[in-house]
């Protein structure tokens, strides 16, 4: 065993343990770590957003390259501060409107392509199939997608035949959820194994761990 002498490793190790204590119950050490986390992360966010988003997308083109086209977003950005002045606070909705307009406009054709066209395309049965197993799988997939879509059909009461079909849809949904859950366990355990390896290996220096 060679316990680390690097003070930064100690900081990281103590903070790691502090977060783990929450599993026992809420306590002052965790509360400290949580507030430190929130403070550091917000500060980090501000600095990074300034250097990586504000500077290249607004400051550089407007104040260095003097591209007057960028007065518009700068003006919109300034309007956020109108929130502080009750009389003008309604103007804060303008930048939000700009973001929402651009975001919604971009998403419409893209969502059509990725969510609807692609998924429909790969669900439609395409004969011939190289073997029966593949055909049966494609057929089950096809039935699954249709029944799940029926489950999300709101215009008709889910009774009788439609009720039965939507019930099959729920079965597919539940099997899917169960499979996803079971499949994700491994990834999450690996994260914890990583933290334990940090504590035992890098901090406490137990070399068999790494």
């Amino acid at each position: 065993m060679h316990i680390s002498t690097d003070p930064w490793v100690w900081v990281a190790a103590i903070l790691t343990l502090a977060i783990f204590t929450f599993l026992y119950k809420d306590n002052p050490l965790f509360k400290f770590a949580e507030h430190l986390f929130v403070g550091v992360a917000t500060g980090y966010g501000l600095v990074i957003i300034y250097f990586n988003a504000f500077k290249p997308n607004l400051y550089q083109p407007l104040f260095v390259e003097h591209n007057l086209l960028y007065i518009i977003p700068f003006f919109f950005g300034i309007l956020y501060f109108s929130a502080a002045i009750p009389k003008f606070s309604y103007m804060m909705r303008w930048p939000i409107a700009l973001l929402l307009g651009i975001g919604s406009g971009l998403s419409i054709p893209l969502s059509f392509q990725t969510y609807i066209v692609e998924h429909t395309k790969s669900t439609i049965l395409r004969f011939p199939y190289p073997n029966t197993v593949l055909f049966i799988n494609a057929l089950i997939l096809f039935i699954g997608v249709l029944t799940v879509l029926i489950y999300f059909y709101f215009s008709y009461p889910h009774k009788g035949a439609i009720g039965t079909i939507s019930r099959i849809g729920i079965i597919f949904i539940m099997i899917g959820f169960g499979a996803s859950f079971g499949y994700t366990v491994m990834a999450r355990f690996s994260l914890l194994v990583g933290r334990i390896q940090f504590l035992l290996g890098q901090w406490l220096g137990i070399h068999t761990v790494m």
Partner: protein
Amino acid sequence: MLQRRIPLVIVFITGVLMSIQYFIPHPISQSAYNIALMWFRGVSSMAYAIAVISFVRHHSRRLKQPQNRFYSAVALLAFLFMCIVGFGFGIEEGTIFYKMYLNVQVPLQATTFSLLAFYMASAAYRAFRVKGFEATLLLITAFIVMFGVTTIGNYIPFIPRLTEWLMAVPNLASKRGILIGVGLGMISTSLKIILGIERNWLGG
């Protein structure tokens, strides 16, 4: 009236322009797209100012409460410290800012993320009970897949194949069905926003 109309006009114009540009390959449309993206990033970066104001206000308010005083001071000081070292001494590798990120924020982040391992266990223990048809289905598939992703699963002949099949067929079907519905909902909401039918974002 004006207060509501202007933002609605803005969403309409930007929304229509942005959805049409997808179909126009001409460089004019492409550069409009690039400018819009830069505006988008620029305007949203300035929104962080509100975040900072709210953050400072929230924790300053809590400085008056004895049980929270110390902790909110920690949050405020940590925030200030990051700003000073970040703006004052740069953010490149080797700076204090970078070291704080690497040795304070990253371990806190990774450890919080790793709590999920524990929560997976307790959630499975608590919720995976054989009550009702659907819960049972969920339990059985999760159980099979958990078996299938471990080494022991390989000793039972059908488990690895069954796990693959569950992931590639029913799981995919359920995801696709949900996503087609989600896609339709997303598009219709976006359209409603652009057309000014959905206006709750204006604040009630």
